[in-house]
């Protein structure tokens, strides 16, 4: 399938999901669906760096929360439509991603991973100490009473996140099949050899970090409007970091399908488990699945299927 065809197919699939959702009159569906879509974006964003180039980012929560808090800041200053907030949130997270990458990506890969881990703690410290955005107490956001064309604000949020999910998936697939994607996988497989063959490794890595961070920031920007009350503990929840790593690794990291499968599967399980069991228990399930999958099925669900097909063909 060419890129153009895929964009069309993805847009049709997105429109179909939205069309079907209009038949559902239960508001909870939109609340739950929004979270699953948000995880599709986060998992895909993580995978652009982690899966394609092999650099682990533990700081998803930081990039995500920076997007969310940039919306809080803008909300307090001016009144802007949601898509603009997402662009700003994406830009800020992208710049921070670039900066972190610039300082650490010239060294061994683990330094980058550790830096992102610490980045989450630091950005949270900054937000806790910043009274303008509510500090540790958190900030309240009033949703606009009416959105043109939509009766219901949560439906609007759902659509916005759906569009972002489609954009993220199309971006990931386009990268995968471009020169850029081959450069990324060269870095993942053997960075030294890639460098020797003239692949501009640092530039590609920075590009991946920036793009991945920006997508995470964009996913975070609508969050204040979704929760209407945002405090550092919820914005920087470790669950974001764990899920955005677990979903691609469980789904499969080498293609755009993997994060999608992982996010839909884990996201849905968690939505069900949060209602039926408890939210701490469902995070334990994610942790156990993550450890289980990386040990037993290194290439995730996609890898298991590929193995199955290969076995049948042989």
């Amino acid at each position, binding site marked *: 399938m060419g890129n153009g065809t895929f964009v069309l197919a993805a847009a049709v699939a997105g429109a179909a999901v939205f069309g079907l959702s209009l038949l559902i009159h239960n508001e909870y569906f939109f609340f739950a669906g929004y979270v699953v879509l948000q995880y599709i974006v986060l998992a895909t964003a993580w995978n652009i760096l982690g899966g394609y180039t*092999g650099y682990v980012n533990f700081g998803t929560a930081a990039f995500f929360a920076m997007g969310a808090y940039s919306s809080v800041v803008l909300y307090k200053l001016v009144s802007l439509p949601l898509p603009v907030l997402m662009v700003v949130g994406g830009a800020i997270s992208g710049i921070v991603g670039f900066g972190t990458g610039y*300082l650490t990506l010239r060294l061994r890969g*683990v330094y980058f991973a550790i830096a992102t881990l610490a980045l989450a703690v630091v950005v949270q410290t900054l937000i806790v100490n910043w009274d303008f955005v509510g500090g540790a107490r958190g900030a309240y956001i009033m949703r606009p009473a009416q959105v043109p064309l939509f009766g219901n604000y949560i439906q609007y949020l759902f659509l916005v996140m759906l569009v972002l999910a489609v954009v993220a998936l199309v971006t990931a697939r386009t990268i995968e099949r471009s020169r850029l994607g081959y450069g990324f996988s060269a870095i993942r497989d053997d960075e030294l050899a890639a460098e020797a063959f003239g692949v501009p490794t640092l530039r590609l890595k920075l590009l991946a970090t920036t793009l991945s961070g920006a997508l995470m920031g964009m996913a975070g920007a609508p969050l204040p409007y979704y929760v209407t009350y945002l405090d550092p503990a919820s914005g920087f929840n470790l669950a974001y970091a764990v899920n955005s790593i677990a979903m691609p690794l469980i789904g499969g990291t080498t293609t755009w399908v993997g994060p999608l499968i992982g996010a839909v599967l884990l996201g849905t399980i968690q939505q069900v488990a949060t209602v039926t069991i408890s939210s701490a228990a469902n995070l*334990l399930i994610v942790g156990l699945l993550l450890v289980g999958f990386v*040990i037993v099925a*290194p290439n995730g669900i996609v890898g298991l299927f590929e193995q199955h097909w290969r076995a049948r063909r042989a």
Partner: protein
Amino acid sequence: MHFPFELLANAAVSGLLLGGFYAAVTVGVAISFGMLDIVNIAHPAFIILGSYITYIVNSTLGVDPLVASVIMAPAFFLLGAAIYQVYYLAFEKRGQESLRGLAFFFGLLFITEVALILVFGVDYRYVTAPYAGPSLHLGFLILPLRMLVPCAVSLVLLLGLQLFLARSFAGRAILAVSQDPVALRLMGVSPSRIKRFAFGLSLATAGVAGTLLIIIQPVEPSVGRDYIGRVFAICVLGGMGSLPGALVAAMLLGLVESVTSTFYGPSWSPAIAFGVLLVTLAVRPAGLMGR
């Protein structure tokens, strides 16, 4: 801003004591990350596990925390050896330690923390010991025993490990693994056996550090997260795998953190470690005493 001398001196001394404790927290990572090249980001979570076990033993049996620590260390050693065995078979042997190995330890960190929350809740827990309350007074300097004792234990631990690594056969074997695993294999020695032993040792220090932590302050499951940045900042600043370097770096970080939190408020202290880490990586990635 006005810096009264007595306040500054007290902040400096308690920073040095805190730094002594940080050295015990870091020494395990200096071994696993610095020498064995195993990026165990779950180390702080195991420290918290150690704190909770100390808490259980202390509150149910009334055993002194430090005695509990001595009993607990061998169990942590075995746990470490078991974790390394899984890590070796699943990742190191297949050459997949960079992405999946990191995710593995991240999963362990997460499971440990969530399991502790499920069992104990998020209430702060503390231990009772004769040295928990009183302080030594030297002129205007106040030295709380709950800081002094952990610092002393930590220094003994570091000294012991340094002597062990430098003098004993097993210790030198660990250093050999860190310097050249390929050459070691050519000599007919299995690096994975030595690494298993060393990783067990590294987790045993996590158990001890957990005891020291709960003597210093009350503990709840997510406290460990604050230590991730600190531990790796100290490890990198000190120079990978250098124990004296780790001690100096730990003292420095403790000093800076203590002075900042005295004069600007404790809510800023988690950011300092990250600043130190980034500056070190940007300016001198080899660290203070790196090779």
